[in-house]
């Protein structure tokens, strides 16, 4: 056995674990340990600085992992690009988009779908990074997070911000693809003005993912989330066609459903922002949904909840 261990660690025949604790513990080690320990523990590090460190930890982890996984990077860009190139190219003559706000002139169908496709980038990544926390493989991360000495609301918010940061990186990568295909977008203000709109929408969708991760145990894999959350939200929205088209064609139920879809307002917010306009209704719905989703998710992750649920069952 020692030989096997030795070969793994490149120190043949020795027992590094033991050697070290004997050699190190008597002299320097405890001092270092204590000094750093004091630093870590007392006074309870300013919660703001601590929260920022946690945010940095989660963001860098998420981004590094994402960049390592080429497949994920590729599919995050290929997915909206396929919609843009194939779907939109095919339908450009079928759908005539009338001049509706925020547009002031006729626009190409490909231009119309861009905000919706930005939305799907945000939706997909928001769900993915929030739900990743509960998959078996990532279960470890959740347990680590929950034993970190920060309020759970702060941890969940950091996790949400980290996921949203990654969403926005992907959204800008998609902008780059749009530029590659020379889409007629209002480039200069759009790139900048879309940022706060995408940030809010990304937060809202990530918060929805967190909420789904708490309450819906049946969605155990991403396919489930695709079928029951992502696709319905995507299709019941003005991502692919303006909602008045639904109303006009008599699909009233679908139209009404789309009106109660928060994703609808996320897309509107981005669409208006890109053209330098503010859609207050969309903004209000997005912010309100964000608050509700995040609040419920934080409540769901509260350790007290187990007790509450038990009492209900027990009595």
């Amino acid at each position, binding site marked *: 056995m020692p030989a096997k261990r030795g070969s793994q660690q490149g120190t043949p025949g020795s027992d590094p674990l033991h050697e070290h604790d004997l050699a190190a513990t008597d002299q320097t080690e405890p001092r270092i340990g204590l000094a750093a320990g004091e630093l870590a523990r007392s006074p309870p590090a300013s919660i703001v600085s601590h929260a920022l*460190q946690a945010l940095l930890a989660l963001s860098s982890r998420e981004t590094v992992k994402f960049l390592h996984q080429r497949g994920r990077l590729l599919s995050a860009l290929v997915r909206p690009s396929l919609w843009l190139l194939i779907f939109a190219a095919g339908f450009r003559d079928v759908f005539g988009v009338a001049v509706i706000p925020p547009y002031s002139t006729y626009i190409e169908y490909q231009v119309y779908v861009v905000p919706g496709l930005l939305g799907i980038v945000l939706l997909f990544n928001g769900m993915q990074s929030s739900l990743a926390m509960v998959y078996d493989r990532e279960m*470890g991360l959740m347990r680590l997070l929950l034993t970190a*000495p920060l309020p759970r609301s702060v941890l969940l918010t950091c996790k949400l911000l980290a996921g949203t940061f990654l969403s926005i990186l992907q959204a800008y990568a998609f902008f780059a693809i749009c530029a590659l295909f020379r889409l007629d977008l209002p480039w200069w203000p759009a790139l900048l003005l879309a940022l706060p709109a995408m940030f809010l929408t990304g937060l809202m969708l990530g918060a929805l993912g967190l909420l789904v991760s708490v309450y819906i145990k049946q969605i155990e894999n991403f396919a489930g989330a695709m079928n029951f959350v992502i696709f319905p939200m995507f299709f019941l929205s003005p991502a692919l066609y303006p909602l008045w088209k639904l109303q006009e064609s008599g699909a009233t139920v679908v139209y009404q459903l789309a009106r109660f879809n928060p994703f609808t307002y996320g897309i509107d917010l981005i669409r208006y922002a890109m053209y330098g306009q503010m859609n207050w209704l969309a903004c209000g719905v997005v912010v309100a949904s964000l608050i509700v989703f995040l609040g419920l998710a934080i409540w769901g992750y509260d350790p007290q909840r187990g007790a509450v649920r038990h009492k209900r069952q027990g009595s």
Partner: protein
Amino acid sequence: MPASPLPEQAPLALAVEEVSKSYGSVKALDRVSLHVARGEFVALLGPNGAGKSTLFQLLTGLFVPDAGRIEVAGFDMRHQARRALACLGVVFQQPTLDLDLSVVANLRFHARLHGMGRGARARIDAELERIGLTARAKDRARALSGGNRRRVELARALLHDPVVLLMDEPTVGLDPASREQLVEYVHSLCTHRDVGVLWATHLVDEAESADRVIILHKGHWIASGTAAELRERTGKRSLRDAFLDLTGEASVVQEEAV
């Protein structure tokens, strides 16, 4: 339920008092009390289903107990959760390293979650050196053997210099040599770093060398004492027989009570 007496002046690393937890009608823990002093190695011995995992979920703040108190280094887990968690180091039963990240990135992640700031770097180096894996710091965790992954997890749990170290069946999946080494190493931590250790296991031989053994069975505290004391009390020759005797007896007592 006879709770083990709490010595007032000793600095307790961990105190669990009269803790109960039920899932529906199943009582997973019934008024369990135990304590771990600084520098003490306490083995929590119990067959599968004894309530060890439930106890660890409560100790790590995943859930709150229905009744009772948990204190880490004097901080109440319910009301001073932040300070209590800051004094707690945990090695989970399931692997929790991110295999796609390097060893040092895994440790850095933890240091940031604990808000360790600039002190983190020196601590990471020191802990890696202690477990003899300095040379592998930049390797992806995936490249490490099972035994080495566990060591990194242990190093991570010690990074913020906890007062108490919780080990939840930490030797699952390790070969006998790594298992023995891990037990010995954690013993040395108690001696040299004054860490209180609560080591949950269903393997009697891991409990043999503990300063104290606590036996848990069907959610009940059954007995506590050194291996020698438990052998003496039951009149058995090995801790294993004493354990079987105590848990066997316990189930009879419980049936009578019901």
